[in-house]
């Protein structure tokens, strides 16, 4: 294992509740706390553990997005990534374009393994890893909760609807990670200082030969239908009565 590429997306922080703009043109993002997509953080942690287990692989964090996404890449460097690449663009990037862009980086970097989150918590699309694997013509192991490397192969346990599934894949490959794979480390202050000296390259989409496309037109963005607030019952007997009367139990 010489090199691991980890894809990092800048998203609205997990704890922030977004609101829809009054004119329905999107969600209000101004001034909101932005973070590394939590699943990508798990992906990076896994890469660092593979490195620290003795493979000494180089860990390269790659993001696509606005100039401020450098903040999230600095976080990745502080966690322990060796270097970072920002493919800078102000265009909204849909999953297919993201996959094409990461493929262009893969062609330059030739990683043995690409790790990323199973989904980003902003658009919840759950597509980029699978699309990258398809375009690269390499294996995909999605929803990984366990990853074991053995030379040119990897054994991956996947969280699927029925339980757990195990597959074996040849490397290089794309692995998208699920919640239970690991618990990411906390960044320490000295590491933040050190991260400032690590290399962070900024390149343009165009320099990678990728044209930013609008694949899907967002017509309008609306708040979800609200559930009516219900009633409180006073005790278990009343609860059971109501449920029985409604034919629910």
């Amino acid at each position, binding site marked *: 294992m010489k090199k691991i590429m980890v894809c990092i997306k800048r998203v609205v922080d997990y704890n922030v509740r977004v609101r829809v703009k009054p004119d329905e043109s999107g969600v209000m993002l101004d001034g909101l706390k932005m973070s590394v997509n939590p699943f990508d953080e798990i992906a990076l942690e896994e890469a660092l553990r593979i490195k620290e287990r003795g493979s000494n692989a180089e860990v390269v964090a790659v993001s696509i997005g606005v100039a401020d996404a450098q903040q999230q890449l600095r976080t990745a460097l502080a966690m322990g990534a060796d270097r970072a690449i920002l493919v800078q663009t102000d265009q909204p990037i849909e999953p297919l374009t993201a996959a094409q862009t990461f493929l262009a980086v893969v062609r330059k970097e030739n990683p043995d393994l690409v790790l990323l989150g199973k989904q980003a918590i902003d658009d919840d699309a759950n597509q980029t890893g699978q699309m990258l694997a398809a375009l690269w013509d390499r294996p995909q192991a999605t929803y990984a909760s366990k990853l074991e490397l053995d030379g040119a192969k990897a054994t991956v346990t996947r969280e699927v*609807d029925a339980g757990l599934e195990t597959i074996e894949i040849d490397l290089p490959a794309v692995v998208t990670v699920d919640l239970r794979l690991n618990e990411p480390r906390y960044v320490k202050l000295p590491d933040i200082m050190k991260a400032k000296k690590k290399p962070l390259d900024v390149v343009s989409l165009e320099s990678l030969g990728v044209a930013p496309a609008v694949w899907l037109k*967002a*017509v*309008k963005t*609306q708040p979800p239908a609200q559930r009516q607030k219900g009633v409180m*019952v006073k005790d*278990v007997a009343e*609860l059971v009565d109501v449920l029985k009367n409604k034919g629910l139990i």
Partner: protein
Amino acid sequence: MSKILILGEHDGRTLNPATHKCVTCAKAIADAQITVLVLGADTTAVAAQAAAIHGVHHVLRIDRPENAHPLAATFAPQIAALAPAYTHVFGPSTSFGKDLTPRVAALLGVPQVSDLMAVEGAYRFRRPIYAGNAIVTVEADPARILVATVRVASFEAAAATGGSAVVASKSTDAVLPTHTRYVGARSGSTDRPDLQTAARVVSGGRALASADNFKLLYDLADKIGAAVGASRAAVDAGYAPNEMQVGQTGKIIAPEVYMAFGISGAIQHLTGIKDARTIVAVNKDPEAPIFEVADLGLVGDLFQVVPEISRLLGG
């Protein structure tokens, strides 16, 4: 006319009800001609089930030994080879569909619309973003094949009988990769109803405090014929297996009744249950956000409430 190819999900014996829900979604598109595709080692039984679904016009089977397990890398090239004859390719938003459809889309060089929750036109749909805190209406280019996953909690299942589709065997000359191999599976299968399709769901959070205590919920579930779910916190803590997780990153469900015990109601959890017909919440904390969405709420200690419900139900 829209020609819609639905990727049928099955375990070799039984077609997953997620497929029937995709059919309902496809039927919402005007003048849709619906084909269900099943891939497997032997799809005789599931192809017959697909043919019986009300509203399905054609069923295609691709039987070959390499299709014994649903590996996206193996399935995708075969689906991509058939797709150009269709205007739409739909898969369910289950772990099967979510793994597979983006690979198909990328092979076709087209985008994917994830988690269709409402159809507004053949190329215009609504889907949730930000854990369901916003709903976006998207329009796709009719000149391209529309690949999508269907948010199964948003659609009723099409009737399993009444259809009489013609079943045809297909072969493709797609080259199948050998770089991805199935090893095995651990299924938490129980005698209880399937969480994703159950009419009743009993669910527990971190307040259960141990895997042992989840037995309280299993007992209640068995009494009322319910499936059992769990919050992310309970799964992370090891009180329940991953397949029981309900929420943004777990299962999105729409039962008749969802009974949440000791679940505070983080937005990521609520997004998984807000299509439930009736939500019941029991929590010690009267300020718990779950009460904002609950139809019936009871402030109380689940360790007293759950056994008492079981006792009042008798048996």
